[in-house]
């Protein structure tokens, strides 16, 4: 399975329906960790920094998509998965990604995860989402300095090389990062 195939799969109705059959936050991420598409994305994120940048950009784009205000965000599942994978693959990006996701309208699992990243002290050990990483890595760190450096245009993390595959361009992306931080 390629990255693109995995990315497309986590955005399908079938994937969304299958994961949302469970009834708890912990079970949702536990189920996610067993999905081949998620495992493949975790593997590639661990090995390739460009994937991490691409994922951060994708999270930004999806978080800013307009939705029908009558309904829950149809991208809740895919956003939750992308943020979750980012939190393990790159703790330096995870707080920024969580910030974007927290702004996304009418999310559920994604927003719960975003808030647990933005306020890590409140996360309890019983939370299965951190036990069941597809990589088995349960480390979270804030790395606020790195995020601010990125936002101010420091190319240390290569964010200026980000090329999204959706509507936002990297210039807009960088401007927004600076404004939000």
């Amino acid at each position, binding site marked *: 399975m390629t990255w693109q195939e995995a990315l497309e799969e986590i955005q399908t109705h079938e994937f969304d329906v299958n994961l*949302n059959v469970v009834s*708890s936050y912990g079970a949702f991420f536990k*189920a996610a960790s067993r999905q081949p598409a998620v495992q493949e994305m975790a593997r590639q994120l661990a090995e390739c920094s460009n994937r991490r940048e691409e994922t951060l950009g994708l999270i930004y784009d999806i978080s800013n998509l307009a939705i029908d205000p*009558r309904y829950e965000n149809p991208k809740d599942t895919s956003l939750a998965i992308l943020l979750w994978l980012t939190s393990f693959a790159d703790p330096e990006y995870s707080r920024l990604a969580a910030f974007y996701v927290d702004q996304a309208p*009418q999310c559920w699992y994604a927003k719960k995860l975003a808030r647990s990243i933005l*306020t890590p002290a409140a996360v309890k*050990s019983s939370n299965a989402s951190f036990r069941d990483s597809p990589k088995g890595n349960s480390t979270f760190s804030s790395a606020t300095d790195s995020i601010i450096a990125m936002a101010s245009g420091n190319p240390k993390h290569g964010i200026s090389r980000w090329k999204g595959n959706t509507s936002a361009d990297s210039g807009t992306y960088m401007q927004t990062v600076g404004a939000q931080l």
Partner: protein
Amino acid sequence: MVLYNAQGSFLVGPQLPLATKKGRQIPNEQRSALAPQRMEAARNIVLSGHSSATARSLSSAYNCMGMVFAARRTWVEPQSLRMILDDDGYRRVGDKSELQQGDIVVYQDGNGEVSHVGIVASINRNVTAGDWDVTILSQWGRDGEYFHRADDVNPLLGSPTEYWTDRI
């Protein structure tokens, strides 16, 4: 102010005042509805994979716990189940032959954690198998409410392991 429930999960939606018979609060959250197209997709996927299932309703406002214990009004995480069973005076049904409509079925995953709950809709003796055919009504996460054979559920919902009743 950051709010999170007893399971350490952050609260995103509004809560309803909901308590056990002994007055202990039952954590819950109300969620936005999913779009009708998404629910139609859920029904098609569920029905195509589960021959015994028939759809009753396609609401996504509640989960299995919310269907059974909160009158289909809100989302209640399964971790609250034991507290509710204790406080509301449920007793375990040891034998399927004692089951009646309205009793509760509890599903557990491979780790013994409560993963799903439903209501016994019907029970019929299966003479050939020497067992009982139990039909359950349950809400499958956000994917709608279905009548189904007790063991015909998505594997992520676990297996039926316990039956409980509040009959006096």
